[in-house]
């Protein structure tokens, strides 16, 4: 039996352990940070080149107008969904094992959204006119087109990003107070003092805090579902064969949760190792997480099959052609890689032996995300290559280095944000771990719950 979190751990120890992660970083931290910055540099360079020369350098063409940018945009948006899953859904379900790990998952949500947002802009042919998409009263009297799924995207992502940030922040206030109380000098003190808003843990604060947190969690769940449904409707609303599918929104949501969970496993292992969080990010938690991932993987596989089946048995010959094209055409290697990484590989996770084997999980979780990235690319590129109009089919389009550079750099950007977060804010929720320990202790003592089954 793997070791779970100790019920008798001293609360002061929790504070100490977590606050240790905020201490001055080791050299390796700076090295990775520099690598991340270099990756961002590649992306910035590519974007400057693309901005000044024109979108043509990304090697898209008139029939193949979207490519990696949109695929990666969906990937990052998808990644963001698991944070909400862990913090909001599991919070409502009273699953206490989420408590040590939801903080960084939520941070991941926020940062992957911030990364995704960049892709929308990078994708635009006239980035300098991006403000045309904002609905604000302007001198020209012209409004954006509210019928466009892209405008819905903008609304949904803006809502999701701001709500996620607020959710992350509100949930962090008690911990910020702890930081404030334990760090006595420097800019950190000032930062925590300001950000903790004078939290003292009074009964009134806690009372309102609970309701607020619960309310936002309630909002976030439908919001997360709607965000990815709306992203899916970018495709489902169009008439491109292979996109015009009713099951797209749930398919996208499932894919989003899936890639997010896989990413959480990856980050879980990294944080556990780097910050020595073995005490909190325990193997039983990992086991639950892996099982959850497995379940979502199977849901995703099912929805994938549903999509294929509905195309296969449907009347739309065009969509059918396209499905065959994906499976047998020049994109076939990527298609089958997607099926393998997305549907076959996760079968491993069903075995107990692997559920706690961190090195294997680390590799597998990354591969799962590779599969999910391929899924997004398989939605975009082959569809454009094989649309309604055979004359404009285009099987040779391959993204240029500029596109790859920007996609590559986005991982650097995400890493940078995440690493900075981990050093500035506690990546494990201290007060909730305390709550978890407290309630488990109560349960061990067979004390009857007092009021409100918490």
């Amino acid at each position, binding site marked *: 039996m793997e070791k779970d979190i100790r019920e008798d751990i001293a609360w002061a120890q929790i504070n100490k352990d977590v606050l240790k992660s905020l201490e001055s970083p080791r050299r390796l931290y700076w090295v990775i940070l520099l690598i991340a910055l270099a990756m961002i540099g590649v992306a910035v360079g590519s974007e400057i080149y693309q901005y000044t020369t024109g979108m043509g350098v990304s090697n898209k063409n008139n029939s193949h107008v979207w490519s990696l940018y949109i695929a990666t945009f969906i990937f990052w948006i998808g990644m963001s969904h698991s944070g909400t899953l862990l913090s909001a859904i599991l919070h409502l379900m009273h699953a206490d094992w989420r408590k040590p790990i939801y903080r960084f998952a939520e941070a991941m949500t926020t940062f992957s959204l911030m990364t995704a947002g960049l892709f929308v802009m990078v994708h635009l042919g006239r980035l300098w006119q991006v403000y045309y998409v904002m609905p604000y009263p302007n001198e020209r009297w012209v409004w954006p087109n509210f*019928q466009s799924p892209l405008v819905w995207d903008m609304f949904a992502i803006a809502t999701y990003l701001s709500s996620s940030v*607020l959710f992350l922040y509100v949930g962090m206030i008690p911990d910020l107070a702890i930081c404030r109380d334990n760090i006595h000098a420097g800019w950190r003190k000032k930062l925590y003092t300001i950000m903790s808003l004078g939290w003292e843990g009074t009964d009134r604060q806690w009372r309102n805090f609970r309701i607020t947190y619960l309310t936002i969690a309630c909002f976030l769940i439908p919001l997360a579902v709607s965000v990815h449904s709306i992203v899916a409707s970018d495709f489902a609303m169009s008439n491109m064969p292979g996109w015009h599918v009713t099951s797209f929104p749930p398919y996208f949501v499932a894919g989003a949760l899936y890639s997010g969970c896989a990413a959480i496993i990856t980050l879980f292992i990294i944080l556990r190792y780097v910050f020595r969080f073995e005490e909190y990010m325990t193997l039983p938690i990992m086991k639950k997480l892996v099982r959850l991932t497995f379940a979502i993987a199977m849901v995703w596989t099912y929805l994938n099959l549903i999509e294929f089946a509905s195309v296969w048995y449907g009347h739309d010959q065009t969509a059918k052609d396209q499905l065959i094209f994906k499976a047998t055409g020049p994109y076939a290697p990527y298609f089958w890689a997607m099926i393998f990484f997305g549907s076959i590989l996760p079968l491993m996770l069903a075995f107990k032996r692997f559920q706690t084997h961190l090195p294997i999980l680390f590799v597998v979780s990354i591969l799962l995300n590779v599969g999910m990235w391929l899924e997004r690319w398989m939605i975009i590129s082959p569809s454009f290559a094989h649309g309604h109009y055979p004359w404009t089919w285009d099987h040779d389009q391959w993204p240029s280095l500029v596109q790859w550079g920007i996609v590559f750099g986005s991982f650097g950007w995400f890493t940078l944000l995440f690493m900075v977060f981990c050093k500035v804010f506690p990546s494990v929720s201290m007060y909730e771990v305390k709550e978890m320990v407290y309630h488990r202790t109560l349960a061990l003592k067979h004390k009857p719950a007092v*009021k409100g089954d918490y």
Partner: protein
Amino acid sequence: MSKRHLLALFNDFDEAVAAIAELRAANIKGFNMDDLILKSPIEHPEVELVLGDKPVNVQWFTLIGACTGALLAFFLVSGAQANFFAQIKGGKPIVPLPPNFVLTYEMFILGGVFITILGFLICAALPAKRSALYSAKVSEDQIGILVKGDESAVAAFKAIFTKHKALEIQEEAGK
């Protein structure tokens, strides 16, 4: 009539609850139960048993915020569509409802979240200056009880707190 603040720190939550119960029962002159504030490192909803039910009003903010967000979105969007520059889209009305409902839905949530947070800040009276009597221990593992009472009551407070194994009692002159 000057009031004094007193902060007692407890190791055990049960002791703190007992102390509160006793404070209530003791009915100390110059002390109102409303002037008692419990400070804890984690949330203890159980304290309502001894502190009495205190209503929470954040949800009203939520309701109003969400409704406002939705209404605002719908009319902003539809109103903008009914602009002088009507964007005619073939096969669609100028003010199409399904897309507008999508945006209404998003703004419903956005309004709800924003105003809820606003409500939280108002209801929890945040941001606030920390009270003078505050111990960092509270954010670690100890329970604090902050009471405000007439000077005459101080002795009674102390007695009760000591009785319930208070680790530490801080006091400060009130205004």
